């Protein structure tokens, strides 16, 4: 079984490029050029230098002693929260902005949910001197206010998406519409392993640095490149794709994808696509999709803006259907408890998204000698007001 994209842009039955003709030339241009450009030596040289000196890579692989003790297993955290801008998203935006420059594009657009991808895009645009427009759902503008402020400070224009549930899905719709209206000078930096081929593959390649580093770091610390488990949260699935990438063909490594259950799988307010979704098309990709019987997209829900999406990337749909990855989920409440636990046991305040990955530690069944790597995709600064309110620390 192959877990990599085939020449038609599919992972098993999922993927492809279901775009209207207006987008066809743009997507084709990317498809024909992305591999060639990212394999060029001068591209790689520029990318590697920026990842090292600007982003701050490699990020540490941290052995978490008190968390390990509590769950009686060996827990490592891959510290993507320590990247410049505070999440894994910048691994991808650095790569794509270099690509956009080589394609001669002048104007950058992006969608964002939690605002981390928006900030990471605004950051690389400031660095490269490019115009930047970020679409963000109105609900997310509200709940991730610190990131909105950062984007503005960086010179990006933040455009509210006001349709549907006013979250990530709707921001993505608006970004795609912008691209349709500006086909010549504009480059769309998608923030996850979603969208039409070649985006899922391209974003996965840029995030693959996460598992590339994990392998080397584990070898050094544990004498083996392979842990027993790799755990990552899944919104669209880019941090998970990066954490899984170099383990896809290592059947002994169990890949655990954690989705947002929201208020509970059966509550009607959830974003657990692997359970609630079925085969469909969203944002140019055939994948698992939360939808009605009539094929209308369902509004998802999660307290975490970055996981509040009714689909998953086609790679993850394939990993789910083929059984290569195990899909678990965590509710809002479980994620919040995991936030407090990590904060108080290890002195690390995680993002709400990342906390979903932490929240399954107690039901993993990992043995004492087994190695568990959790991809800590981002830091929690953006979520502090939610945390303070939830734990009533604002009243003390």
């Amino acid at each position: 079984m192959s877990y990599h994209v085939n020449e038609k842009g599919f992972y098993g039955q999922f993927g492809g490029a279901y775009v209207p003709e207006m987008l066809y030339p743009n997507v084709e241009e990317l498809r024909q050029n992305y591999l060639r450009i990212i394999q060029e030596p001068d591209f790689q040289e520029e990318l590697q230098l920026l990842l090292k000196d600007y982003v701050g890579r490699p990020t540490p692989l941290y052995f978490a002693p008190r968390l390990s003790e509590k769950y009686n297993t060996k827990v490592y955290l891959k510290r993507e929260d320590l990247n410049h801008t505070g999440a894994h998203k910048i691994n991808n935006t650095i790569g794509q902005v270099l690509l956009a420059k080589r394609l001669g594009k002048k104007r950058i657009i992006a969608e964002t949910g939690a605002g981390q991808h928006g900030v990471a895009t605004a950051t690389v645009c400031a660095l490269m001197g490019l115009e930047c427009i970020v679409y963000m759902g109105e609900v997310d503008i509200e709940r991730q206010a610190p990131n909105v402020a950062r984007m503005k400070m960086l010179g990006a224009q933040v455009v509210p998406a006001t349709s549907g549930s006013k979250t990530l899905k709707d921001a993505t719709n608006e970004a795609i519409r912008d691209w349709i209206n500006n086909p010549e000078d504009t480059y769309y930096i998608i923030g996850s392993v979603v969208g039409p081929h070649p985006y899922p593959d391209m974003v996965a390649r840029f995030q693959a640095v996460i598992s590339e580093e994990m392998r080397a770091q584990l070898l050094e610390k544990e004498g083996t490149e392979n842990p027993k488990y790799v755990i990552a949260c899944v919104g669209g699935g880019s941090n998970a794709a990066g954490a899984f990438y170099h383990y896809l063909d290592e059947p002994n490594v169990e890949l655990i994808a954690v989705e947002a259950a929201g208020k509970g799988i059966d509550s009607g307010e959830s974003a657990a696509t692997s359970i609630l979704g079925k085969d469909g098309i969203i944002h140019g990709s055939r994948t698992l999709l939360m939808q009605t019987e009539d094929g209308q997209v369902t509004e998802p829900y999660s307290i975490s803006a970055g996981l509040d999406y009714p689909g998953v990337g086609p790679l993850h749909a394939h990993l789910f259907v083929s059984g290569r990855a195990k899909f678990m989920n965590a509710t809002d409440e479980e994620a919040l408890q995991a936030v407090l636990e990590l904060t108080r046991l290890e002195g690390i305040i995680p993002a709400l998204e990342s906390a979903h990955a932490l929240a399954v530690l107690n039901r993993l069944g990992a043995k004492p000698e087994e190695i568990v790597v959790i991809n800590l995709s981002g830091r929690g600064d953006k979520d502090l007001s939610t945390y303070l309110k939830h734990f009533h620390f604002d009243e003390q």
Partner: protein
Amino acid sequence: MNNRIKNLFANKPKGLLSVYFTAGFPSLNDTETVILELEKNGVDLIEVGMPFSDPLADGPTIQQSSTVALRNGMTIPKLFEQLQGIRQKTDIPLVLMGYLNPVMQYGVERFCQKAGEIGIDGIILPDLPLREYVDEYKAIFEKYNLSKVFLITPQTPEERIREIDSHTNGFIYMVSSASTTGKTLGLAEQSQAYFQRVASMKLQNPGVIGFGIHDNETFASACNHASGAIIGSAFVKALQQEGSLQENISTFIKSIKH
């Protein structure tokens, strides 16, 4: 080739007016009334929009009509039920237009069979890739005598236009400029060059220009370059005016054709 579409272009090779509306808008059961009124007012071809929750290629007007239509309860089975007896009442060519996902969930073959039975003439699914259509669905569309209409844009390379032309058998939907639906900037200079370029290719299918056509002037200008033009958002907006459906439709079509 489908006879109603073929006859239309044979009998009226120039100046043809095609109108799009969203089924289920303004009210759930307006579908038949809108079709019959459009025909009565001299429209030549009708595109019946199947609403979708996430219409990527559409601007605010059609997004909003789609949202209202879905809230009103419009679905593909409902639309088929409304159109069941339509061929006893009118012979106007009817094309269904929508996004792939709802059709996929209904089942593509089942959809084509039902549309064929009702007397639908063509289907437009902008996000169904050409390759996938040719490899998986073309035989089905042909079996039920449905024309599959494809879009081209000013950015579509000549080679691809020829490929599209070879796989379709109704008309080609020429998107006037790179945009979502509902922009009213008029037809730009560059668009004229693109229209002429396509005209000079001598394609087997006639071309109809859509996107941005919203008044008498843009309609007339588009008709100079192709067999006709398609009006969508401007018509959907007209349906929201005060007054009866009949009045709104007649006033709007008169304003285009005067």
